[in-house]
């Protein structure tokens, strides 16, 4: 248990946390703004990775590959959205269906292989774990900070527009939204598309960072995303009130999550038990509001 090992692993953990932070911001759009639990993300993050990896291997510019991943992710969200609104399937099931379908789609994208190597030696990648401890602009943390800032700014702008406000109203109160002339079905689809586009984008970055795209890279993504959202809210909820800062809290939540993971691994936790631990921690946090209301509530006048 050398402390040096832990310190050496930290920059990589921060970078990885930032990539998952982008993913968690995408998840925040459905989970917190639209109030829809979208399980598509487990598939769409891998789709993003697969699309970007294949395009880069085939000589595409890395930025064009990222854009393509974003667009394909939006298509995945569109499918879930149509399952939910047009076909009337419950949101959670719609996401599961798309996620399952994406498993086959992702294998197809990767030429029927379960994983595709994306070596930084051969291709010009935007982020790579190899540069995690390099002091300089090629350090993935630098580019990821810019990515996160840009994403938060764009979303802050979007959710302040008339359209963005109508999306927030859709999540807050669907009956009210419809009474104010808002097409809640279209907005739900739009939110799912935007969310999965961002998730796929983070998948595209993740594939570059880890040096491969894998059909299983999204397993449990929703739980990691939720962990980031919840940690962000618990730690920064009291001080971050502004919408932009709330998104920042989500990004920071993901970084904290990966730092904690790094510490427990360093303390000797078996890597295989990681998902079990994550699921339990998230379950406890999700249960807390219920427990608080049920066992610790003080009588309060409801408005």
């Amino acid at each position, binding site marked *: 248990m050398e402390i040096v090992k832990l310190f050496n692993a930290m920059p990589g953990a921060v970078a990885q946390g930032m990539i998952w932070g982008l993913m968690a911001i995408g998840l925040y759009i459905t989970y917190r703004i639209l109030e829809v639990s979208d399980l598509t993300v487990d598939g769409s993050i891998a789709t993003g990775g697969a699309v970007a990896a294949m395009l880069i291997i085939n000589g595409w510019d890395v930025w064009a590959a990222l854009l393509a991943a974003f667009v394909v992710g939006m298509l995945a969200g569109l499918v879930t959205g149509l399952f939910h609104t047009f076909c009337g399937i419950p949101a959670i099931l719609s996401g599961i269906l798309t996620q399952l379908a994406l498993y086959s789609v992702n294998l197809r994208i990767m030429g029927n292989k379960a994983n595709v190597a994306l070596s930084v030696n051969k291709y010009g990648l935007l982020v790579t774990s190899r540069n995690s401890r390099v002091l300089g602009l090629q350090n993935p943390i630098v580019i990821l900070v810019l990515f996160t800032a840009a994403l938060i700014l764009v979303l802050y702008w979007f959710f302040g527009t008339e359209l963005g406000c109508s999306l*927030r109203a859709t999540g807050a109160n669907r009956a009210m939204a419809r009474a104010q002339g808002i097409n809640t079905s279209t907005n739900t689809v739009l939110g799912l598309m935007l969310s999965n586009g961002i998730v796929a984008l983070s998948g595209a970055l993740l594939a570059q960072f880890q040096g491969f795209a894998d059909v299983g890279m999204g397993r449990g993504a929703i739980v990691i995303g939720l962990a980031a959202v919840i940690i962000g809210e618990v730690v920064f909820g009291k001080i971050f009130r502004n919408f932009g800062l709330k998104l920042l809290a989500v990004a920071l939540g993901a970084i904290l999550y990966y730092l904690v993971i790094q510490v427990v691994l360093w303390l000797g936790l078996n890597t295989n038990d990681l998902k079990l631990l994550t699921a339990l921690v998230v379950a406890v946090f999700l249960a807390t509001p219920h427990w608080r209301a049920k066992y610790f509530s003080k009588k309060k006048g409801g408005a």
Partner: protein
Amino acid sequence: MLKINHIAKTFNPGTITEKTALVDVQLHLLPGDFTTVIGGNGAGKSTMLNAVAGVFPVDKGTIEIGGVDVTNLPEFKRAQYLGRVFQDPMTGTAATMNIEENMALAMRRGQHRGLKWGISNMEREMYREQLRKLDLGLEDRMASKVGLLSGGQRQALTLLMATLRTPKLLLLDEHTAALDPKTAAKVLELSDKIIREQKLTALMITHNMQDAIDYGNRLIMMHEGRVVVDVAGEEKKKLTRADLMGLFEKAAGQQLNSDKLLLS
């Protein structure tokens, strides 16, 4: 202004929970008609209002608002013609958004929502003026989340939002039923004032017979999915509760249980 032509609605047809809520409803409202709606539990009052609002499609008949046939329009498209206030104060506003954002949403009812900023400074001033008229101090709390307001404040705000963009028809669905008597009276007064000032056509469901008599220029009573009593003008002005019960008994052919009517 509103033409309901022989609409019918049965929920869950062919199942064990089948319920015929509207048998045959016929109602025409003239511009400026402020009509109060009373009737017992399950008479079809709310169902009629929701049918007009487009919450569900009707089985038969047509609905016209201001000369436009809206029978096949989805709820969100009909919204451009309608202002709505609901029984539950939670329903009419978005709790997690602040007062001015809620008003900005209402201001864009029936308008295209694009990528322009969701609220302008000019609007803000207008909202402040409107809120001041409510005399609830909300003009100083425009950045507060609506979830922090009391039920009465939320209903007053919902009323304001429903009439911010003058609707062709205002639908009030027992909008004071969930409030304490004092607040209910205040919200009712406010509704009456707004309807008079803007010369609105309105349909107001109430469980209170006296309110139904005191407010509006026309009164209808529903029973088992039909409109069974319809009084207007001078006749309504002279109406008493006893008259109303007599009219009901004649129409429905049975003794009126006034408790049932009041409690519904």
